[in-house]
């Protein structure tokens, strides 16, 4: 049953507001006792600078394929019922949700581990870039140095 109910594609890019309740409902299964979820919110600061807002840009076709592959990897590696991730593109304001990851599983260990794996790997590997606007008038693309904790390919 769970295989049939899994989303064909576990990842989507959206240019409209994310709705956590609808996303969450898609992962409900009677055999799921645990649900772990991660949301990335637009912070008002980054590296000590006040942030006014930001924009996400993606290499759309590739981001959709790589994102779906990351979610498939999580489904294969962890004993979970289902998993899903959506990522915003376009302009976002402070407090907006940039990314949502949800995982349902029979037990909480697998739900947490898969959720963490997905967000870590999305951040490492999916071609999406953040452009921040700062209170001091400056703006720029973020091209972070590799995070040593990130899961590498």
């Amino acid at each position: 049953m769970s295989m049939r109910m899994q989303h064909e594609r576990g990842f989507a890019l959206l240019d409209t507001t994310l709705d956590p309740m609808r996303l969450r409902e898609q992962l409900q299964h009677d055999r799921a006792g645990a649900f772990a979820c991660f949301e990335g919110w637009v912070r008002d600061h980054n590296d000590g600078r006040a942030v006014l807002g930001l924009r996400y840009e993606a290499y759309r076709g590739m981001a959709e394929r790589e994102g779906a592959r990351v979610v498939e990897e999580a489904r294969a590696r962890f004993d979970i019922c289902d998993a899903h991730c959506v990522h915003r593109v376009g302009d976002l304001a402070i407090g907006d949700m940039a990314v949502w990851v949800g995982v349902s599983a029979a037990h909480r260990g697998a739900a947490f581990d898969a959720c963490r794996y997905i967000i870590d790997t999305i951040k490492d590997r999916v071609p999406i870039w953040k452009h921040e606007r700062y209170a001091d008038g400056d703006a720029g693309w973020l091209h972070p140095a590799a995070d040593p904790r990130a899961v590498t390919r």
Partner: protein
Amino acid sequence: MNEVHLLYFASLRDAAGVDAERVRTAAPDLAALYAEQQARHGFALPLARLRVAVDGAFARWDEPVRSGCEIAFIPPVSGG
């Protein structure tokens, strides 16, 4: 000479001034192709900080340049 379709994203696009272009190149592999475009557009990011994708999938820098491909230089990503 091969003709390829190049895609630029984020700071590379800002530096190139275009998000895509068709170029003819004698570069034997993808690393040489980046060096060529880096010199032409003045890209600040060294090759070591980039990844490269061919037709929407990650590729190795030592792969040959094939005519008709879509090639994207991928600056460090910052989604999530």
